[in-house]
């Protein structure tokens, strides 16, 4: 029992150390890549694979988030005669929390899974060893372009999700539930601040980096065989999912403290 616990603890610490080293090498590699224009093409390729192809799923996610919020919140607000303020509730939830978090979770599944599977397969078929054997750093060649692509594009994908969430909420509220359009936008404009939108978008940088780092690390360290790659994909998604939620919580605490320092909190209703 004691032996097993000790062995597991050592394993966790060793794994954390390996991950920290991986992150450190990726950070140094990213800085070097930014200074070497010849490597930009690798980043562009990944931006296309990671960002452009994720736009439809992220937009669909955002649209459904907005529509579901409208359907569920309407009865509560209508009961108090506040249904015209539905817009502010939907839009602040979408741009500040649900849009960024659900878009990031969608990316963890779509992009993270693909990154782990691709790098994991490269690992078990010795392609990563081949990169090393030719005197090239696989972190710089394989990981850095993927991390930079996720870092740069996740905020934009979140903006797409926010936009569709707002439109989805508007569609259900105004077209289906017959709320006055002008009042809907008026209350939304009064309640949702640039700060809320900025917080959601800034989260995207962190979510993107976390998804890419965890997914690439799991791909680089997956066990042999199809089962090993499958397990690595699952671990990458679970790790990214929990990290996104934990980061979101930390962000909520930090941004609330910053907001309270400079502005006074106003009631949305």
């Amino acid at each position, binding site marked *: 029992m004691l032996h097993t616990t000790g062995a597991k603890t050592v394993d966790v610490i060793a794994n954390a150390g390996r991950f920290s080293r991986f992150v450190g090498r990726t950070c140094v590699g990213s800085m070097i890549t930014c200074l070497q224009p010849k490597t930009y093409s690798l980043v562009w390729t990944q931006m296309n694979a990671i960002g452009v192809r994720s736009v439809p799923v992220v937009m669909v996610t955002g649209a459904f988030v907005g529509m579901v919020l409208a359907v569920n919140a309407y009865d509560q607000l209508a009961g108090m005669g506040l249904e015209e303020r539905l817009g502010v509730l939907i839009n602040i939830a979408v741009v500040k929390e649900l849009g960024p978090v659900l878009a990031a979770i969608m990316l963890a599944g779509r992009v993270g899974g693909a990154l782990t599977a691709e790098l994991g397969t490269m690992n078990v078929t010795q392609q990563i060893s*081949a990169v*090393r054997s030719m005197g090239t*750093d696989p972190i710089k060649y394989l990981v850095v372009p993927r991390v930079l692509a996720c870092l740069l594009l996740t905020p934009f994908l979140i903006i797409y999700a926010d936009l569709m969430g707002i439109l989805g909420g508007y569609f259900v509220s105004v077209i289906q539930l017959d709320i006055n359009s002008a009042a809907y936008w008026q209350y939304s404009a009064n309640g949702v601040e640039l700060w809320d939108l900025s917080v959601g978008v800034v989260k995207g940088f962190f979510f993107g980096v976390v998804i890419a780092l965890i997914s690439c690390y799991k791909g680089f360290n997956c066990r042999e065989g199809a089962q090993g790659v499958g397990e690595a994909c699952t671990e990458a998604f679970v790790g990214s999912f929990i990290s996104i939620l934990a980061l979101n919580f930390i962000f909520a605490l930090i941004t609330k403290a910053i907001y309270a320092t400079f502005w006074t909190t106003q009631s949305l209703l």
Partner: protein
Amino acid sequence: MGNVVDNEISPDDGVIVVKDLFKTFGKLRVLKGISLSVEAGKTTVIIGPSGCGKTVLMNHMIVLDRPTRGEIYFRSERIDELNEKELAPIRVQYGFLFQGGALFDSLDVFENIIFPIRQHRKITDWKAIDELVKTKLAMVGMEGFQNHYPASLSGGQQKRVALARAIALDPHIILYDEPTTGLDPIRSDVINELILKLKRELKVTSVVVTHDMKSAYKIADHIIMLHEGKIIAEGDTDYIRNHPHDVVQQFIHGRVSEADLAALRLGGTKFKTQYAPEDFK
């Protein structure tokens, strides 16, 4: 190079020198004190049964794996203690043919072959690169396959393209990991001829890991046999062919041992073999 496994090896004894190498993975001891030298311009073949540590030994020669204990020298310079960045200029002098080819499946044949060139040289003259790729593909008998993706090639074709990639930077040393495994006899012989051709034309030093004895006899100047993580025999092809050690004879003739037969009998398996137990006495 003598026919003795010796620990008194010096870093200047060959282009690659491995001194007292031990490697463990967790509790598994794979290499147990290997010392060897690879002579420049010659083909050294490492033979041994599956799982005896041949590939791990070869990975150490280019420091893809780090020793648990022991030293690796390249041209008299100790390389196992260098970091990845310091190893890059040394690795450029090697070509490595991986067992499965390890071609990048997201790149076509042309891009695979220019990969090492692109990483280490600034390409300004694309016409020259185009010619170079054509030349390398012609050397391995794969002309006209520039635009194919690895997935559309057979196993033998993938190995030949991987060999073209391995020689793209005109390396001084080529490491071949099981070059003929999984290929039919004709394709295997094509690869053997390619290895001989590269040695003849490019004057490269070759290290080949294989358990294909036909191939080993054809290409080797020097053969080293590994068994359970140790060198049990080394010498030229005639020396190995006539080696008195039972394990060596069983391996080179591909005979099952009496111990293996006994284990199968204990497992309750009824089977027929072309060899009777007394054949091994």
